[in-house]
């Protein structure tokens, strides 16, 4: 045995190819860092959970915005104008007007709701049917519901509105889009607020991971000193800590996806029931694969950034004594 060892010692040490060495070191560090996290399950899980919640918050808010935007797209009729005609305008005149307006390039469709049909609908939906039966005359006018074509800009819609209001037969025009505009403005503001919040939470993740890695570096100070003493570079010593950051970020990302997924699962049925009550088939949208990958990528990126900052800052200070 000893003889064999001696003859082996004679063989000059071979350096692997730089790429192979680099790859093997990375694989070693990658697995080793994961093993170190697994050996401290409680502490690791706690850190990962904090990262997951921090990632899940903006992800959940993003989903809220995404679903609200989807919901607003189904309100096409909210873009319609209601042109209330004067009460002395006859049904024939109203029909003629419908044909004229429908020929405009900036109008997609015009629907005529006769005064009689409007009253019947009002009777059916208002709950005052019996009271309305006592009316001697129909107080409601004929109404044209005008839907602008999709190519319209906000300015051209305003112009259309103005022109319809100026028609001699028109009493007044009600623009139904205003509340939608307000709703979209609120969504836009929320999107920006979420982006700012996500940035702040991202910074928080960097701090959390940075602090965890800093403590890890302090706990392994002696090991770092010894390793540097026998010739390890800062990059060599830093590498396992970067992988720890990566695992924290990846773990946090995966757990965040699970949390958001569970939240959606819990909301799906009540949301469907609510939509059903409004006669809608709206179903809650989940994160698609791109968004899921973005969350994982963000987790990993922030994990690496946090560990890099901590390692770069503290590693230089640890030198052999």
């Amino acid at each position, binding site marked *: 045995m000893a003889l064999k060892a001696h003859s082996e*010692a004679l063989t000059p040490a071979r350096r692997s190819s730089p790429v192979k060495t680099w790859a093997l070191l990375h694989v070693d560090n990658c697995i080793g860092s994961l093993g170190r996290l697994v050996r401290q399950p409680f502490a690791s899980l706690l850190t990962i959970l904090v990262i997951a919640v921090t990632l899940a918050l903006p992800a959940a808010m993003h989903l809220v915005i995404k679903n609200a935007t989807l919901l607003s797209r189904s309100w096409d009729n909210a873009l319609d104008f209601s042109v209330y005609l004067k009460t002395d305008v006859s049904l024939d005149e109203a029909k003629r007007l419908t044909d004229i307006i429908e020929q405009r390039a900036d109008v997609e469709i015009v629907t005529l709701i006769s005064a009689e049909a409007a009253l019947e609908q009002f009777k059916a939906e208002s709950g005052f049917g019996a009271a309305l039966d006592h009316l001697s005359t129909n107080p409601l006018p004929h109404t044209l519901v005008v839907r602008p074509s999709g190519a319209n800009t906000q300015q051209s819609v305003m112009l259309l509105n103005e022109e319809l209001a100026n028609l001699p037969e028109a009493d007044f025009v009600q623009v139904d889009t205003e509340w939608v505009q307000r709703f979209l403005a609120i969504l836009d503001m929320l999107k920006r607020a979420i982006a700012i919040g996500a940035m702040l939470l991202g910074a928080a993740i960097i701090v959390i991971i940075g602090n965890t890695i800093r403590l890890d570096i302090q706990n392994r100070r002696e090991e770092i000193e010894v390793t540097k003493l026998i010739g390890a570079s800062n990059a060599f010593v830093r590498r396992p800590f970067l992988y720890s950051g990566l695992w924290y970020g990846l773990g946090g990302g995966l757990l965040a996806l699970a949390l958001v997924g569970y939240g959606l699962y819990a909301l799906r049925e009540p949301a469907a029931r609510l939509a059903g009550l409004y006669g809608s088939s709206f179903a809650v949208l989940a994160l698609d694969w791109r968004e899921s990958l973005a969350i994982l990528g963000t987790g990993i990126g922030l994990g690496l950034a946090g560990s890099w900052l901590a390692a770069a800052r503290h590693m230089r200070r640890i030198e052999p004594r």
Partner: protein
Amino acid sequence: MIQIDNVVKRFPGGQEALRGLSFSVEQGEMVFVTGHSGAGKSTLLRLIALIERPTSGQVIVDGKNTRRVTRGRIPAYRRQIGMVFQDHKLLYDRSVFDNVSLPLVIAGISHRDAARKVRAALDQVGLLTKEKRNPETLSLGEQQRVGIARAIVSRPKLVIADEPTGNLDPDLSLEVMRIFRRFNEVGVTLLIASHDIALIDQLGCRRIALENGRAQIEEEDDVIYSEPFELQQERDPWL
């Protein structure tokens, strides 16, 4: 191999550890640096290992002036030197094998070659059967031998040792010196700081005595190896 030229090391606060120290060590020599505590032995080794820089003067190791070794090149410089410490500086969360293989891993040696080299080094220090053990479970003498195996595993031309027998009893100290001597016999240069004059006298190596940061005397080999050091009959550690 080592040239120390008028080296002064002054620490913040004004304390002078070395005051114009000059000496040289030829390639293949085994030289002891002796002196009482605080004489500057450890400081000298720290200057050679580039843990410290001299305040003035030059430290030249294997033709390299350490002043010209930039911060970024220090790791590569240290990889050329084997270092042995009084407190072993082993990593107690790893096996003996992993401790000894660390310099090879850092140097990017392939796993297979590293395993061969580690086993050969462990064989040299008589610990081949304990490669899977945790260093904590070994005796102090064995731990020091692990430290020596780690220092020589990458076959450096120079090994420096700071009080390598400081925590060992006389028998274990002799055993450690015996290992050093074997490596010196095949051309490894050794510079060993020790205050154990009696032990050094048994080896008959050149001794540089430090006192208050200066070399006081240099003694040439005048002692025949005593009984434990029948080195002529020892095998070549690399063969």
